[in-house]
């Protein structure tokens, strides 16, 4: 993966990753019933007094889900917001549970992969 260091997101790269996982994303978006049952399986959600931004489904829908719906056409600022969501609001413990069988950790990992392809990741010396 050649990381993009330009301020403008590399749309074709994002689109190719989205295309590679199209089926998985589409199933996730279709199957999510917004039941919020995944919330209680996330220790970050529980320890942040039920802040919806920590709900596993929220993290997936507002990162990969949004990218998919916008066909990868997002600004750098929007990608940075997604970076914060998938890196700062999730430790990828893979413990989140979806009664519909959506593999939420895999979708959040995909969100991170897209961010990484644009050279956006968590800075631990910030």
């Amino acid at each position, binding site marked *: *993966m*050649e*990381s993009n260091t330009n301020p403008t997101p590399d749309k074709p790269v994002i689109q190719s990753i989205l295309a590679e996982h199209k089926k998985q994303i589409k199933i996730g978006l279709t199957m999510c019933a917004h039941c919020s049952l995944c919330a209680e399986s996330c220790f970050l959600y529980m320890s942040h007094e039920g802040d919806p931004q920590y709900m596993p489904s929220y993290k997936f829908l507002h990162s990969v889900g949004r990218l998919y719906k916008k066909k990868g056409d997002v600004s750098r600022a929007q990608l940075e917001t997604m970076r914060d969501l998938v890196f700062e609001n999730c430790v*990828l413990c*893979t413990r989140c549970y979806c009664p519909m069988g959506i593999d939420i950790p*895999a979708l959040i*990992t995909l969100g*991170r*992969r897209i961010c*990484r392809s644009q*050279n956006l*990741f*968590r*800075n*631990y*010396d910030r």
Partner: protein
Amino acid sequence: MIKAKPKPLQEIQQYVAPYESVLIVGCGGCVSVCLAGGQREVNLLKTEMELAHFQTHTAKRMQGYTVERQCNPALIKELDPYIESADCVVSIACGAGVQLLAEKYPGKPVFPGVNTIAIGVDLDIGLYEERCRACGECVLAYTGGICPVTRCAKGLFNGPCGGTNGDKCEISNEINCAWHEIYSRLKAQDRLDDILKIQPPMEWKNQVKRTIVQKGYEERYIEPK
């Protein structure tokens, strides 16, 4: 978390010298936190190696990729196409990550790009200190939360050695005697009885591969005898 330190560039260059195409693989887990093996360090190592090879006229095709965790088989699957096009791999994850890559891709030489140092604590950004050696027989309950395996130069289990110099270790005046610290803490907690309990010798298990099966998962992973 696991703490690691980058290997010297020259050492890594020696590993990859016979190969044309090199893939540097970072890890988004512990080594990212300790600033040794995350995506930023992948980019940095790639640039340093490209520059070094340019200066020595030994151009190589360098690629960099960072997975979220190199110690998780499901999360390294995405490496498949990149591994295929590389002659060798430099992993800057901990020893577990390097070994999992080497196991999953037995046909590719996988070299470590960092030295895995310890399980440690974050004292500050870029400053870490060892606290645990994962010995598998935790005695912290009796030692006031101070690990004699890690903090005592001799890893003594039942009190200090004869070389203890007041509150300092005999190997250096800059190192505190772990057993002096243990004594002081237990005394402050009125738990000196604990120090009198003789601990059996450590059952060093480093000769066998330790596998952890958590309680409740025995049925899934252990066949009944």
